[in-house]
């Protein structure tokens, strides 16, 4: 293989030498390098462009609402007003607290389910199974990761939502909460269930990588100390893999925050602020996460103020997700340094 390549390189060099008389080659080389730098620079500038564009588009919302955009509620009502407002008197003030809370509760709920389950599955894949079972688990995980979100939404809508409305909700409950919101199966709980299945493959995949990266020396050291296999896993392997697992968790959180389509289908599509004072009905509150709001209200995007409001949702999303991405990097390097790996 290597020899072959060297041969082909040698052949190529000869060709080059023949061409040298024309002096095209150096010019072409620098042009080629210039293209590479240009494209790389474009990639680097992309994230800044995204930030600038959507911030500019939503600037009026932020300047009119100020901090109230993240401290007040009333999004549904404001959208309605903006829709009906005369063109010369647009509504620029929006309060997105309920959207932000909806984003956080669905994502957090899904993480609470998916992280232990994902790490557990990863442990089974890496340490407790072999042969066909292992391959089977791995391909199931990969398939689960590859299923498009719209299909998760469809399954949620046809399976999870009817289950919730048929088995978990009663007419009395619906009557009791009618003054706050309509209790249908479309709810935070449905969102959490669907989102859990969507993010669990990420947690599994990154945990598997992290666990496989733990040197076998640690396992041997622990076993040789008379510690059982399972305790070795929980006391030595998982702690040694924790930075990788944490990276997976954060990545999964980012996915949850940014999930638009599936959640817009199952989570209720109404910007209610979930309140813990409702007891367990908290879970049945219909919510509208930021990302779903953009999908949900996009029919009205021709109205400039609504368009700006949706861009504002985008800005908040972007800030949250960029923060998470940067967190991963920081945590990674901190943990590595603390473990003395650097």
């Amino acid at each position, binding site marked *: 293989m290597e020899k072959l390549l060297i041969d082909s390189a040698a052949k190529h060099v000869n060709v080059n030498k023949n061409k040298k008389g024309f002096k095209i080659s150096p010019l072409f080389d620098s042009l080629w390098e210039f293209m590479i730098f240009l494209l790389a620079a474009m990639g680097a500038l992309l994230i800044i462009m995204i930030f600038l564009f959507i911030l500019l588009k939503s600037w009026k919302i932020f300047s009119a609402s100020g901090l109230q955009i993240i401290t007040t509620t009333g999004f549904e009502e404001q959208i309605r007003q903006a829709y009906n407002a005369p063109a010369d008197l647009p509504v620029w003030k929006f309060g997105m607290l309920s959207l932000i809370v909806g984003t956080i509760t669905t994502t957090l709920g899904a993480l609470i389910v998916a992280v232990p389950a994902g790490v557990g599955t990863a442990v089974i894949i890496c340490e407790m199974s072999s042969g066909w079972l292992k391959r089977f688990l791995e391909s199931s995980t990969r398939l689960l990761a590859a299923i498009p979100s719209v299909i998760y939404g469809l399954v949620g809508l046809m399976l999870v939502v009817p289950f919730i409305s048929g088995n978990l909700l009663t007419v009395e409950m619906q009557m009791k909460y009618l003054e706050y919101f309509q209790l249908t199966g479309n709810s935070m709980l449905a969102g959490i269930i669907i989102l859990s299945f969507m993010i669990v493959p990420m947690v599994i995949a990154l945990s598997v990588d992290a666990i496989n990266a733990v040197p076998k*020396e640690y396992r041997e*050291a622990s*076993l*040789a100390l*008379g510690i*059982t296999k399972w*305790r070795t896993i929980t*006391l030595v392997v998982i*702690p040694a893999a924790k930075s990788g697992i944490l990276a997976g968790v954060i990545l999964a959180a980012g996915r949850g925050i940014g999930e638009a389509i599936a959640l817009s289908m199952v989570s209720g599509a109404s910007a209610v602020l979930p309140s813990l004072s409702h007891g367990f009905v908290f879970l049945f509150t219909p919510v509208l996460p930021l990302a779903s709001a953009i999908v949900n209200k996009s029919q009205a995007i021709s109205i400039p103020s609504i368009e700006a409001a949706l861009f504002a949702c985008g800005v908040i999303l972007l800030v949250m997700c960029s923060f998470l991405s940067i967190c991963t990097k920081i945590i990674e390097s901190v943990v590595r340094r603390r473990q*003395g790996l650097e």
Partner: protein
Amino acid sequence: MISKVQTEQAVFDREPVIPEEKTAISIRKVNAWYGNKQVLFDVNMQIKKHRIMAFIGPSGCGKTTLLRCFNRMNDTIRSFRLEGTIKINDTDITTKQADPISIRRKVGMVFQQPNSFPMSIHRNLKLPITENFPNIDKAKIEQIIKQKLQDANLYDEVKDRINRSALKISGGQQQRLCIARMLTIEPEILLFDEPCSALDPLSTNKIEDLLVRIKEKYTVVIVTHNIEQARRIADDVAFFYEGRIVESGTAENIFLVPQTELLERYLSGKI
């Protein structure tokens, strides 16, 4: 409950036993394979209590394989297979009924590369104690940790940074930490697989001193490539060649009057 705690504590308060010539490990007709490849052929040997036994021989001759049989570490290698008997305290440890966990508690091991866990020094030592003696109290744990660090000649060097990462101390210090960690579970037999191969001469000296000092309390088996090291510390020596024991006996006999040509050539560095 109470009696269990007492016996556990009693383990640590044990007086050093007066050395007596008794067999710690008795190996009979051991053959071993990785898959189809046989790596040990008909090995017979007696390892005496409270002495240092050194395994020497060229690379790949099966020293590590035999050593790892003593604490069933080869169980982790799927293709490994063993025939023959290895008796520790008159019980055969190679059978299915023998519990590898309790064997490993009796037979500690230090590996070629220092493998301290990526945690603080303190936690490295505390973890095996709490796992093996679940009913032990806090003060006692601290006492054992200090004791074992002192036994391993490490206490003075790390006492100020006992809560810092164990990966941030030198290789030699880490290897001594691994020794201290092994000692916390109070094994009877200590296995060392080339413990000094990654270390500088000074650290090597420290570990050799340590081995000579602790053989009062334990039985030591060490694999080494360093003939000088074997000369310095070993009481008994076994010479391996291609999966067989060619010669074994007391250190004086092996080094002063080698019986076979193979050993002579090995000692003079020709193989």
